[in-house]
């Protein structure tokens, strides 16, 4: 029974059933032919879905489409003559699309296509050819050299790391007020590039530097994924960058005609931070450019009307009460005010933006990564004289632990080391586009160049220990690798606390850097102390260092009482007894008792001496 319906193949246009056809394959081909001829728009995609026995035609927006060269009868439609014309710029890409040589497929139509990787692979059965094998990757992924030499997950990781790289993201960064921005001082174009990198002109917005890298351990300082940096290189500007952060505030209007005012708050303001905090502000209440600022300094002075109406009436004073709502530099931050601007919002309220800059010299704890998904954290910045050096006196900028290579199978990293070294000696960039050349051929090319310049064919060099002056027993693999400084830097993250703020509700320490919080001693950590039997250490963590509270508990009825300071007696509000004991409990327990009471249950506390 069900068979009968499916003999007719439904046609869906943008997800709506519009009718049916008897021969879906012929129909689909007809639509495609019309598209290639230019009779209908090139943006129409059509697919026959065999499993559903449906034809889907899509013309709507938001489909991801990818260009393919059309193949017919085992031959590419992009003939040699056309390719030559294209090269001479007699025709352009648009010509190829208009004449049915290249077409764009969406995800659904791709299901109907049989795509050959290169012209050489085409058979009768193929319907399309990839424009270039690299188009299996996206723009970002194609900026890495030798991805075919690496394991796929590492290539994927590169694609996410490169987005975190500091560089020259825009040349007008001085005029922009990004909430956070990182500018690398001396960006370099990589010695090993790819066609995608060149055509995106990323060399004009480079986000890394060519580091001299030695593949070696260094007295255990680059264990796991740690790296060691050369102090001299850092002092000369290696990886140095500037961090920009924008603080902004607005003169908001409130119902009732009240509004915020930018100004140095008078000492009578509620929440006044003290004269010192406002000392760097100018008369307009906003800080001046090129002013050194440290944590706790006010950047924008602002007074706001009180939060609740009653407050403004209170005390009977004629002067309206105000509240301090200034923008303060966050704890742990410092720098120089880079620029200040005043603008206006669409609601005609004044807006101030203050951009603060801070120098970020690479230090231990900062993160670096190469273009092969190999990231590492600086563990030590070594004085130049203690670094290993080669016969020619070359000292590496960075030392990478060789144990990180085999397990991750990032052979592209090694090939780049050689390729960039050869490129540096030759004085010309080298190409590392995916699938463009066999790895072994590349290796031999580089070997030839290196040999011609008096280096070991495969990059190994006799190196001397900077500490002892003696040569190492093994030769070290040394070359050049393009490294990115990633935007995770310790100076923006580190935080300490010994004593500090507590939450209002629970009296427990706050959490998070912004609130000067502590690190949570959680359930699992608690279990560890229990398992160890360290009962007093546990009590210290859970009570003394957390929410210890001293409460008065009635010896007679076991409920919580209070101390009447005027009469100098303790009082139990329930039974009017004056015999109360001071007991140390966690504030959380006091809260629990309160909540139990809210359930209409009366808890009583019994005590022993």
């Amino acid at each position, binding site marked *: 029974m069900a068979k009968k319906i499916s003999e007719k193949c439904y046609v869906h246009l943008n997800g709506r059933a519009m009718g049916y056809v008897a021969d879906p394959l012929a129909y689909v081909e007809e639509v495609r032919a019309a598209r290639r001829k230019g009779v209908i728009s090139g943006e129409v995609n059509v697919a026959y879905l065999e499993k559903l026995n449906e034809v889907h035609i899509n013309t709507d927006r938001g489909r991801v489409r990818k260009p393919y060269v059309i193949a017919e009868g085992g031959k590419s439609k992009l003939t040699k003559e056309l390719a030559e014309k294209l090269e001479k710029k007699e025709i352009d890409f648009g010509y190829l699309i208009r004449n049915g040589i290249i077409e764009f497929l969406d995800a659904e139509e791709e299901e109907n296509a049989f795509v050959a990787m290169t012209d050489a692979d085409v058979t009768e059965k193929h319907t399309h050819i990839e424009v270039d094998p690299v188009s299996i990757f996206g723009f970002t992924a194609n900026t890495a050299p030798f991805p075919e030499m690496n394991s796929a997950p590492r290539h994927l990781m590169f694609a996410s790391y490169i987005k975190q790289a500091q560089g020259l993201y825009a040349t007008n960064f001085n005029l922009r007020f990004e909430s956070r921005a990182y500018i690398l001082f001396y960006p370099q174009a990589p010695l090993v590039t790819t066609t995608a990198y060149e055509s995106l002109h990323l060399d004009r917005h480079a986000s890394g530097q060519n580091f001299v890298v030695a593949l070696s351990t260094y007295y255990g300082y680059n264990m796991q994924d740690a790296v060691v940096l050369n102090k001299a290189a850092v002092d000369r500007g290696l990886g140095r960058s500037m961090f920009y952060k924008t603080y902004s505030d607005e003169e908001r209007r409130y119902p009732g005609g009240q509004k915020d005012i930018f100004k140095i708050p008078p000492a009578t303001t509620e929440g006044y931070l003290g004269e010192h905090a406002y000392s760097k502000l100018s008369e307009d209440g906003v800080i001046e450019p090129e002013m050194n600022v440290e944590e706790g300094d006010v950047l924008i002075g602002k007074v706001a009307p009180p939060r609740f109406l009653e407050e403004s009436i209170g005390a009977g004073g004629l002067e309206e009460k105000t509240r301090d709502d200034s923008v303060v530099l966050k704890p742990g931050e410092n720098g120089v005010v880079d620029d200040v601007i005043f603008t206006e919002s669409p609601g005609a309220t004044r807006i101030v933006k203050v951009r603060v800059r801070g120098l970020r010299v690479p230090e231990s704890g900062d993160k670096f990564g190469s273009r092969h998904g190999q990231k590492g954290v600086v563990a030590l910045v070594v004085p130049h004289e203690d670094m290993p050096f080669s016969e020619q006196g070359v000292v590496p900028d960075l030392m990478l632990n060789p144990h990180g290579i085999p397990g991750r199978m990032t052979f592209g990293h090694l090939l780049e080391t050689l390729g960039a070294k050869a490129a540096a000696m030759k004085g010309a960039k080298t190409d590392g586009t995916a699938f463009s050349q066999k790895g072994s051929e590349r290796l031999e090319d580089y070997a030839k160049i290196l040999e011609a310049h008096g280096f070991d064919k495969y990059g190994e060099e006799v190196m001397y220990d900077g500490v002892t002056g003696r040569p190492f027993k093994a030769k070290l693999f040394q070359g050049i690798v393009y490294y990115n400084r990633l935007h995770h830097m310790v100076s923006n993250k580190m935080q300490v606390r010994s004593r500090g703020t507590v939450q209002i509700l629970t009296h427990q320490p706050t959490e998070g850097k912004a609130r000067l919080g502590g690190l949570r001693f959680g359930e699992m950590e*608690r*279990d*560890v102390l*229990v*398992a*160890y*039997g*360290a*009962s*007093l250490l*546990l*009590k210290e963590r*859970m*009570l003394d260092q957390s929410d*210890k509270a001293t409460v008065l508990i009635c010896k007679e009825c076991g409920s919580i009482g209070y101390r009447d300071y005027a009469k100098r007696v303790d009082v139990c509000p329930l039974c009017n007894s004056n015999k109360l004991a001071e007991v*140390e*409990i*966690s504030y*959380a*327990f006091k809260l*629990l008792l309160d909540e*139990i009471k809210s*359930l209409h*249950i*009366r808890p009583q506390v*019994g005590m022993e001496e």
Partner: protein
Amino acid sequence: MSMAKDHEYNVQAGEPVGVVAAQSLGEPGTQMVLRTFHMTGVAATAIATSGLPRIIELLDAKKMPSSPLMRIRLKESYAKSFAKADEAAKKISEIKMSSVMRHIVENFSKGKILVVLNTQSLQAADLTARPIAARLGKELGVEAKVGEHGNIIVSTHTKNLKEVRAITVKITKAIVNGIEGAGRAMVVQDKNGDFYIESAGSNIEPVMQVEGVDPEKIYTNDLFSMYRVFGIEAARNTLALELRKTLEDQDISVNDRHISLIADAMTSGGTLQSIGRHGLVGKKESVFARAAFEETVKHLINAAAFGEVDHMRGVTENILVGKQIPLGTGSVKLVIKSKESKKK
């Protein structure tokens, strides 16, 4: 072993053995694969629940494991001969009507039901129509005969539509061979050349009655069957054994004392108790400890209704109020005789 050695291995008083056992089992649990399937061993055990899901199942003391398994040892005379062992296995191996039936036709006017059997699956199961008909007749109290082409004709002696349909449903759900719940049984040979039966189901009580089966040597991974038939000690040992086996399966080594302790804890009440709301944690002495775990309000309200007193003897409740816990260094107290008591 000397006495001195014995004492060396004893834990000291106040050692939090339970927490250590829980951590020792919990930490490897984080490394275990959440996969249920894994492909080794005999067909019956090939798709047995293993790894973390199995451990959870055991600690939850589930009524029936998701992949039950019986190991049935045979009496001497049966264990030596494959033919005899197979005979016993045939009596156990559970075959459902649905797996040998092609289709079923009802004749309401005559009150008869025609069951068309699948000859191929019958052959595969080594069955014929005659014993099936006999069994149907006996179990459903109907008249069942073998008709042409080896089909079974059931006469219901009623023309009531509902009753006929009810019998049809019973027939399709009927078991045509073996013991209900016993699963497919297979004969396996052990290292000594003795035959025994492995079965992918569990229902040990009727299996014990089967001729040739050694009723004292039946093993099942169903804890409750073991408890019901052999008692709490057997259930404890089964629990420990199953935990150990599951961990070993994943190449995880956990000291046997931890596993033993958990098995002891779960069976110490004389019945099988799960670890969780309905078992050990739910039966804790302290109100606060129970309320801190799950169903806080329920425990508090019940405690209020019954006027419960928390004696603050456990770990959780003491941490909650901020007292030193009565474990480890907190399990000792300093007692000084007062001057007055000295005089006496």
